[in-house]
């Protein structure tokens, strides 16, 4: 649910990075923050545990300029991936306009990805929303690990596990190196803004 302020002509669009723990959601946002630091005036907000795991969420707001005379404010959130933090994940999803599902391409994480996707659908259902009806981009992260000989799932397997129902756009990415991080972000922004435009403008 984007909020549109007709007086100041501002639209706030909420995009949430979702996925299993240690999958690279925060690393995505950190890369975006570093890369566009000159343009992002706000500080990135992050609430972590001592072990550097996301405790509550990360938050990164920035403007992308005008669409139909409205200033678009994009607000990126991540959720804590660890299973035990489900209540927090559900909170962050409230009012979401677009989702990036960051899957971990490591073969050993296959089951975790599937569980996280199921958990996302359950949490959306508590807000009477369906994943299939929301702007969604899949990101298959950690492709750089192939160089170190770590077994990775290929794109076909990931597509079959996670995306056969949704047919969402997908990117093989390395959040650590920045590969396809910006492409993922651009895609979800354009889809979310288009969906907000269709609904409200």
């Amino acid at each position, binding site marked *: *649910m984007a909020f549109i302020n007709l007086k100041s002509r501002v639209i706030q669009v909420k995009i949430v990075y979702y996925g299993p723990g240690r999958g690279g959601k925060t690393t995505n946002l950190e890369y975006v923050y570093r890369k566009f630091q000159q343009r992002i005036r706000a500080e990135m907000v992050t609430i972590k545990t001592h072990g550097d795991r996301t405790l509550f969420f990360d*938050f990164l707001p920035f403007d992308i300029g005008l669409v139909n005379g409205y200033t678009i404010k994009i607000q990126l959130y991540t959720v804590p991936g660890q299973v035990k933090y489900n*209540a927090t994940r559900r909170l962050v999803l*409230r009012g979401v306009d677009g989702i990036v599902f960051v899957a971990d391409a490591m073969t050993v994480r296959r089951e975790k990805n599937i569980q996280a996707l199921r958990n996302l659908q359950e949490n959306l259902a508590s807000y009477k929303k369906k994943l299939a009806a929301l702007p969604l981009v899949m990101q298959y992260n950690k492709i750089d690990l192939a160089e170190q000989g770590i077994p990775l799932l290929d794109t076909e397997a990931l597509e079959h596990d996670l995306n056969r129902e949704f047919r969402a756009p997908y990117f093989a990415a390395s959040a650590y190196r920045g590969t396809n991080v910006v492409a993922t972000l651009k895609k979800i922004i354009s889809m979310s803004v288009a969906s907000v435009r269709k609904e409200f403008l």
Partner: protein
Amino acid sequence: MSYTLDQKQLDRLEDILKADLIDNGVRCVFLIDMAGNIVTNLDNGEKQHDIYSLAALAAGNFGAVSAMAKIIGENEFSLLFHKGKKENIHFNKISSEFLLITIFGNDISLGFLRLKVAESVDQLKGILEPLTAAHP
């Protein structure tokens, strides 16, 4: 929930917040929804805060405290107060979808602030509740 506020409604919200809170010495007040969006914000011009981050954190904080309330068998804690050395922050729930946040110094007593916030909330409800009812 989707909702839109027109210029007249926003002007009315701002008038209420200005008359009840800013004119009574509150430094900064903002009305947000539970998703962390800012509906409107006003300040007395002294200090600029990063209001977007503040709104995101406030909505998260309020959500977390509401979840705590449910665990101990309360339906909700409808107001929260955090005390600092110079600045204090007060959260008051308006409806299931909206939250009013005020930032104020030690020159205003908490009791007075609560009174003024309660008066504003009653008036704000008149504008905001029809929105929630129209878009369940």
